[in-house]
């Protein structure tokens, strides 16, 4: 979870294995996507909640990296302190997107949220907030 990355590229092994990719950069923030496969399926026919949590966390961390990349010459180590996930709707087996928003980033701590959606961006299926330690 460290190294000189601007966000979105070179995702960790877990994210790559799960099929998480960078879909696009939107206003400087990575939008991640995950296509359906047996690796993310939960109750037959639905996106598994834990896999969704993994996608959301990755989006939150990438948002922090993108933010730090604009402000710092070298990226500090980013360590999650806590994460809270809320599930709003069942996820279908379709391409699922997630992007994060840094609410506040100081020198030692960043507060970040992330949201996930499928076909309709206005219908969120899950969200997280995360607090991460920097350095």
């Amino acid at each position, binding site marked *: *979870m*460290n*190294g000189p990355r601007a966000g979105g590229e070179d995702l*960790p*092994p*877990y*994210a790559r*294995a*799960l099929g998480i990719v960078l879909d696009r950069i939107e206003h400087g923030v990575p939008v991640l996507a995950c296509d359906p496969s*047996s*690796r*993310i*399926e*939960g*109750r*037959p*026919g639905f996106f*598994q*909640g*834990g*896999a969704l*949590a*993994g*996608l959301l*966390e*990755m989006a939150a961390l990438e948002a922090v990296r993108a933010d730090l990349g604009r402000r710092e010459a070298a990226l500090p180590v980013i*360590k*999650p*302190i*806590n*994460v*809270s*996930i*809320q*599930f709003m709707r069942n996820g279908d087996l379709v391409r699922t997107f997630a992007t994060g928003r840094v609410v506040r980033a100081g020198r030692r701590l960043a507060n970040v949220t992330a949201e996930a959606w499928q076909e309709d961006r206005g219908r969120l299926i899950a969200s997280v907030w995360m607090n991460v330690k920097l350095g």
Partner: protein
Amino acid sequence: MEQARTLAAEFMARLAGEPFDPRLMAAMIGNWGHTGWLGLRYHGHGADWMELALPWRDELVGDAQSGVLASGPIVSMMDMVTSMAINQKLGRNAQLVTIDLRVDYTRAAQPHRTVIGRGECYKLTRSIGFVRGVAYDESLDDPLAHVAGSFMIVDGVAA
């Protein structure tokens, strides 16, 4: 893939509402979908708690340099094991939906170690199950993460 999904759906439909068998359910989720890919295995159970194991694997690493497991697989395991603790306390396979789950990372996981997740259901109402739990790799007394959450018991009100 399609055949496996049909089988899994049929298996779950048959188990719905039936007495909860922790080992059978662990075998099911350990061989299907996301939880099967993670490699979750049965580790233990009691009257209101359940334990699953998440064996270390390089595909599940979140930081290639340190070799420490990513947060995502641990969250997935804790979501699954706390929901199983509700089923265990209810004594049947209920239809559960996660409302929320909070994870506090109290220390780093050890590289190359199997992580054990323990979920406990500490309160049931007619429609909500409240859970807490820990993830640990060596001793239950030295958790790497604590969790708290709640689940909707979809088929709970009329039961």
